[in-house]
Structures are given as structure tokens and as C-alpha cells.
């Protein structure tokens, strides 16, 4: 292939380098021995990994991020899957409008939504930042839950549920015994996608912080803007490894194409 299209292949190579080289830089800097941000790094050491794992704002915010991602994913799926089911199997009135409503959080800038939640829940209503984060992330994840499981439902044969009913299964039995197992790959994809999206989210989470509550990316951002040590690169590398692990898991369970082929809006 490279021989047949030399120019395009070169361009692709350059583009891939452009995309992936920075990741290499991050890993390289994480392995620095010294205090200076420099690539290639001066010396190799794992010390910054140790520092990162001991740095409290990072470890605290990691916990917060995990809680928020977990809670928001559960909420988004718990409300999203039944709604998607209703949209695809019940043909309600105003179906298209409802679909737009559920996908609407995607059109609004996340920062703006973050501010809207900030001024209402934090400033005005005095909510805990954690609660506001969970609400905000749930709203953010809902479109993913609806769209990804929707695609799965659409591909499943609607006659399956009719068959189950004809054989004597009640609505709950049909849903848990037939529908859910059939859309399980879709639900799994949506779960993984949601967890990742929530975990990595920055703009929405920026304003929804307090002295004690902060998500990891926001903590990292704060650190980068004030301190210039390789510790940030170490945290990034750890996150990178975690993400790779999740991606491999997803591939094993569901198949890569299934999860990420549909993540493009």
C-alpha cells in the first residue's frame, strides 16, 4: 500500500506522528530525573511517579473523579435505557422531538452548562459540589447512553419481544430475559464510553469545585498552571496506562469497533 500511494502515505505518517508524538513526550517527561520540564528528559527515573501517587490533591481528586464517574454513569443508564427502549419500541408521539431533547446536552458548550449549574446549584442553592458534579455529569452522559443503546436496540429484531410475549412472558420478564441480554453489548459500550467521558471531563467540572471537592483533570490543570515539574507528566502517564487497560478490556468484552466505532458523533 505504501508503494502505491507514496505521497498520501507520507502525509498519513506525518499526521500520525503529529497526533501520537505528544503522548510519547508526556511519557518521556514523566521519566525525567530532574525537576525541569524538558524533552528529551535528562536522565531516567521513576521518582515522579512516586511523587504523583503521594500528592494529596491528586489522590483525593482521583477518588472524587471515580465516584462522580460511577454515579453519573449509573444514573445516565438507569434513566437513559428505559427512555431509549420507549423511543424505539413504543413509537410515542413526538418521538423525534423527544430524541432531540435527550441529545440536546451535546449542542450546548460544556463550559456554559457548567456555569449554569454553578450559578444555580452552588451559588444560589448552596448544594454540595459533589452533588452538582454528579448531576452535571449525568446530564452530560445521557446522550451517550441514549444514542449507543439506541443503535443496539435498532439492530435487534423487534419480533424477539413479541415472541417472548406470545410464549407467555410478562413485560418485566421480557425486558430482563430477552431485551437486555440482546442489547448488552450496547449497554456495555455505553458504560465504558460514559465512564471515560466523565473521568476525562474538564470544562463542565471546572466551576463545580470546592475546597475539598475536585475532579482529577481539574486538579491536574490547576497544578500545570502553577507548578512546572514533571509530576504532571507522571500522573498523565498513569492515566494513560489506565485508559489503555480499559480499552483492552473493552476490546475483550465487546470488540473495539463496537465501542469506539460509534463514539464519533
Amino acid at each position: 500500500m505504501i508503494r502505491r500511494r507514496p505521497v498520501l502515505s507520507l502525509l498519513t505518517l506525518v499526521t500520525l506522528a503529529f497526533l501520537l508524538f505528544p503522548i510519547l513526550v508526556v511519557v518521556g517527561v514523566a521519566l525525567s530525573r530532574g525537576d525541569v520540564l524538558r524533552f528529551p528528559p535528562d536522565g531516567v527515573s521513576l521518582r515522579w511517579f512516586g511523587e504523583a501517587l503521594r500528592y494529596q490533591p491528586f489522590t483525593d481528586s482521583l477518588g472524587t473523579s471515580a465516584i462522580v464517574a460511577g454515579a453519573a454513569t449509573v444514573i445516565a443508564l438507569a434513566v437513559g435505557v428505559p427512555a431509549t427502549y420507549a423511543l424505539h419500541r413504543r413509537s410515542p408521539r413526538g418521538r423525534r422531538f423527544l430524541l432531540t431533547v435527550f441529545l440536546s446536552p451535546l449542542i450546548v458548550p460544556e463550559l456554559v452548562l457548567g456555569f449554569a449549574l454553578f450559578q444555580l446549584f452552588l451559588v444560589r442553592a448552596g448544594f454540595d459540589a459533589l452533588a452538582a458534579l454528579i448531576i452535571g455529569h449525568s446530564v452530560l452522559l445521557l446522550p451517550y447512553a441514549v444514542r449507543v443503546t439506541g443503535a443496539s436496540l435498532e439492530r435487534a429484531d423487534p419480533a424477539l419481544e413479541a415472541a417472548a410475549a406470545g410464549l407467555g412472558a410478562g413485560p418485566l420478564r421480557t425486558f430482563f430475559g430477552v431485551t437486555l441480554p440482546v442489547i448488552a453489548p450496547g449497554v456495555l459500550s455505553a458504560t465504558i464510553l460514559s465512564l471515560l467521558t466523565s473521568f476525562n471531563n474538564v470544562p463542565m467540572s471546572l466551576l463545580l469545585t470546592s475546597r475539598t471537592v475536585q475532579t482529577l483533570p481539574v486538579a491536574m490543570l490547576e497544578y500545570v498552571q502553577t507548578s512546572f515539574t514533571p509530576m504532571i507528566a507522571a500522573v498523565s502517564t498513569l492515566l494513560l496506562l489506565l485508559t489503555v487497560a480499559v480499552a483492552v478490556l473493552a476490546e475483550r468484552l465487546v470488540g473495539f469497533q463496537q465501542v469506539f466505532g460509534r463514539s464519533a458523533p
Partner: protein
Amino acid sequence: MATAALLLPALALVLVGFAYPYLTMLVAPAADPHPDVVGKLLSAVTDPYVVDIVARTVRVAGLATVLSVALGFPVAWLISRAPGGWRGALLLAVTFPLLLSTVVRSFAWIVLLGRDGLVSAALQAVGLTDTPTQLLYTEFAMVVGLTQLFLPLLVLTAYSSLAGVDPTLEDAARGMGAGGAAVFARVVLPLALPGTAVGAILVFAGAVTAYTTPSLLGGTRNRTLATLLYQEANTSLDWSAVSALAIIMTLLVLVVTTVMSRISTIGSRA
């Protein structure tokens, strides 16, 4: 179970977590006793400082979009025509960065574009400059960072659009006597354009509203709408003014994406 009962929780979430906060932001942000969002909006759009920032935001986002399309479309085309094994690997390589946080992805440029960074060193080595140059905290740095951020998105949308072009159409064109370039220009390109246009719109919308990259790579001297909004939200107590900025950002995205999609549909209908 009643259809309404199935839909209600999701509707409630959207109402409570999205519609209602938005509404209060427009009308009475943060329980401001004397909200004046419209007034602040008007003064903001006439404020040269704000206008300047909006212009920079659009400029930087526009450039990043153009670069993304210029680089991304050819790459997407190559991937779509690549043999099976290559295709999967290339797609994986391109989309992998999408899984990472924006902080991680933009951080490297801080190292690379700094005064003593690799890029500066490379420029000196090639002879384009004599002294170490600070490329960080410039619009150039923001464009580079944003392009890197959104390029995979464009490649993905362009790829699915290109892959969706029925290959038998190309065979038909070839059968009627069209050469390779003509087939591309007259069959593939027009059919793949709408999908690619959608990708470009998404890239632009994302670049206009991005926070992390402009914040890390642009610095305080090169504010975009997003960084301005964040700063004001954190420091100012004039909630109506902050709301105004938020509205400007929302409208900016809505207007531009609507205009762009109109243009692209007109083009495809022609």
C-alpha cells in the same frame, strides 16, 4: 409499563439538570436581586475587549478547523482505501488519543513549544531563527494544540462518510470511462462532502468552546471566550455579566453551526 413512565425519569433529568439551570442563567443568574442579563449582553457585544476576544476565538478555531480538514481528509481517504489489516490499525492509532483527557493531550506542547523546547531547537538547527524562540502562549500554539485535539474527530467522520460511498458507484463511473481523478472528483468527493462537512462543524464547535488548550497554550495574554468566561465566573460577582458571556458563547456556536450546515447543504444540492 406505561410509555410515559419509561420516559419520565430521563425527562426529569434533562429538566432539572439542564433546562432549568439554563433558564435561571438567562433570567436571574445566581439569585442576583437585580439581574440585567440583556443589558450586560448589549454592553458586552459593544465592548471592544470582548469583541477582540471573540474574534480571536473564531480565528483560532477557524484555522484549527481548516488544518484539521486539510490534513484529516486525505488521511481519511487513505484509510478508507487501505487493505483491511492496515485500516483497523490506522483507525486505532488515530482514535486512541480521543480516549485521553485534554490536559494530557495538550500538556506536551508546553514542553515542545517552550523557549528551550524541541520545536525551537529544530528551528534553530534548520536556520530559521538565531535565538531560542518562545512559541508558547501564542495564537500559533493554540492553533497547533486545537488541531491536534480535533484532528481525530475529523478523520473519523470523514472516514465513515468515505467508507459509506458505495464502491459499485466508482466501478460504474469507471465503466463509463472516467479516470481515477475524475472518479474521485465527480463521484467520491461530492458524496463524502456532506459527512465531512458535519465533521468540520463539530470540530469548529469544539474548538470555539474549548477551555483547556487555550488556557494552557495561550496564556493570559491570549484569552479566548472560554478562558474569559472562566475567569469572570471565578472572580467577578456581576453574575449578569458572566451570564452574558455564556450566552454569547452559546449563540456563537449555534449561529456558526447553523450557517455552516446551511452552506454545506446548499453546496451538496447544487
